[in-house]
């Protein structure tokens, strides 16, 4: 390779890095604004020209956490954590079981049933809101964690089944057959062999399900009032007849992003591709 072409490649690399930096800046800018605004005084927030340098204040953060809405933000976050964690766990657990069935058993109509499951996501959720409200009200389950968990689980289940079915399909059948020969039952094989092998799939699904449950607003705002309200409902409450309390809004917004961000960062190192490599041949 000649020197000229090496130089050209280096230039290309720099250009790529520059483009990547611009893109990262574009993505992070809203988060930067969110975090800085939550530490600004009201005067700085509403200044005509954007204030880049300011004296930080924790007034907004304090208001958001302890005064606004008359209830601590921690309780909303706790509600979100309970519904998100439980519904994600259930969606992944039942999703994996169903996906294994769809992947390994070919029965009459299995393809149609799999498609039907996906089709439950075709209609906009708002279409179901009134019947669901009536049902939940009938069973006297309004404003409970249980209601949100059931709804989020059922909404995530189709996604979970479809993602995990692909992962199960990738497991060579011979590995399961070897486990039969070794003396394991189908249930044991599912837990001891298949589940460890689809770990990246389980993590991907868990991340997607938890992001959905964490951010879901429509059902949360209609089916909960106070006790089971989640963080998106709390965020919306900053908008009232007096306008929007930007500082507090941003402070809670930043807080709301954190758990899911931390969850994803912790889990992403387990997202290794090609876990089944080396099993056969």
């Amino acid at each position, binding site marked *: 390779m000649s020197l000229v072409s090496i130089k050209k490649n280096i230039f290309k690399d720099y250009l790529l890095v520059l483009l990547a930096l611009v893109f990262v800046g574009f993505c992070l800018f809203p988060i930067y604004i969110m975090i800085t605004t939550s530490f600004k005084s009201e005067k700085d927030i509403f200044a005509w020209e954007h204030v880049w340098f300011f004296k930080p204040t924790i007034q907004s953060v304090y208001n958001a956490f302890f005064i606004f809405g008359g209830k601590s933000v921690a309780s909303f976050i706790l509600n979100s954590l309970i519904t998100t964690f439980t519904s994600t766990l259930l969606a992944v657990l039942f999703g994996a079981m169903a996906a294994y069935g769809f992947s390994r058993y070919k029965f009459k109509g299995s393809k149609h049933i799999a498609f039907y499951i996906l089709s439950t996501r075709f209609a906009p959720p708002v279409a179901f809101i009134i019947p669901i409200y009536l049902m939940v009200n009938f069973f006297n389950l309004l404003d409970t964690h249980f209601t949100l968990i059931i709804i989020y689980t059922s909404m995530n289940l189709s996604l979970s089944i479809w993602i995990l079915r692909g992962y199960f399909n990738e497991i*060579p059948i*011979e*590995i399961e*057959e*070897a*486990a*039969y*020969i*070794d*003396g*394991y*039952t189908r249930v*044991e094989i599912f837990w001891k*062999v298949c589940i*460890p*092998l689809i*770990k990246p799939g389980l993590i991907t699904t868990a991340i997607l399900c938890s992001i959905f449950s964490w951010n879901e607003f429509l059902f949360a705002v209609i089916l909960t009032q106070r006790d089971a309200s989640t963080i998106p409902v709390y965020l919306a409450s900053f908008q009232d007849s007096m306008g929007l309390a930007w500082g507090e809004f941003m402070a809670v917004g930043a807080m709301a992003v954190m758990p899911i961000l931390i969850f994803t960062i912790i889990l992403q190192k387990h997202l290794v591709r090609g*876990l*089944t*490599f*080396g*099993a*056969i*041949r």
Partner: protein
Amino acid sequence: MPNIVFHNITKSYDGINDAVNNLNLNIKEGELITILGPSGCGKSSSLRMLAGLESITKGEISIDGTVINNVLAEDRNIAMVFENFALYPHLNVANNLSMPLIAKKLQKKEIAQKVNEIAKLLEISDQLKKKPNQLSGGQRQRVALARCLIKQSKIFLMDEPLGHLEAYLRLLLRTEIRRIHETEEATTVYITHDQEEAASLSDRIAVMNQGKLQQVDTLVNLLDKPHNKFVAQFIGNFPINLIKGFLLSENESYIFSVENTSSKLIIKENIKLKNTDLSNLTIGIRPEDFTIEDNITNQNTLKGEILNIELIGDKCLINLDSQLGNINILSNFSKEYKINDKIFFTPSFKFLKLFNSEGMNLNLNE
């Protein structure tokens, strides 16, 4: 040492075509039998039915007299090596080997001891901490063999276990398999499409084609006394020469008149003709059963022109355009031949292979 009996076994995947058709096979206790056949002949299906990985459409398989058709794979206590190893990719070698023992609910201490013993036997002790993807093909195969052995089953099933290995490793592990079969006093069913491997390993070879068992015998008998044309063609290092013609009886001997030529072969061997149509026969002569002559030595000496010469070790395979048509002759590499040379040759009929129009060998003593 258990014995295994396949009784009228049929397997059909689609309900129309039979992958295995009415298989009857008696595997004696302590025997190492090889099922040999081309791809799609039903050998793997037969093995998988025995392992319990495939349902049986018709017939019965029994082990030591007990019918196992309805026994689940996990309860059959059979050990198996898969063609593509099928190791657990998420577990290291030690844990891969432990799996059959954990299923048997053995104590941890006992498991560790057995794993170490078997690893020592197969020389993989230094690989125990590695995952399958860190091992070479040969090492993975050893792990697969070790996992099969550690179960201490009395029936080993091996589905082309050496198919994906280099030639030298195949040789090495072949000996290992035979040795293990003997020390463990097991009954082994081995599947391969490599007849050299089958010959070196097994007590008997079962040849299958298109779902049907063709013949079960030792390699020597398969070579010399094939039951039918398929076995004659399939077995042997070099393809057998098949010459069509018809037979005439004359003064206690027979004359085989080669189709479309004026050539005749005089056969003095006794032939059992079993009411056969003598006008449509095929004679099979192995390339090794010809002698190259310097000149015409007897009535059966024929002439041919060399079309091609292939060197195979210390021998050469000569392709001839001869009075018998296009044939192959295996010759000791004593004299140098050239293409277009004309040579004389005489076929030997020590083990005459004469097939009728259905391809059955007429000349079997049975």
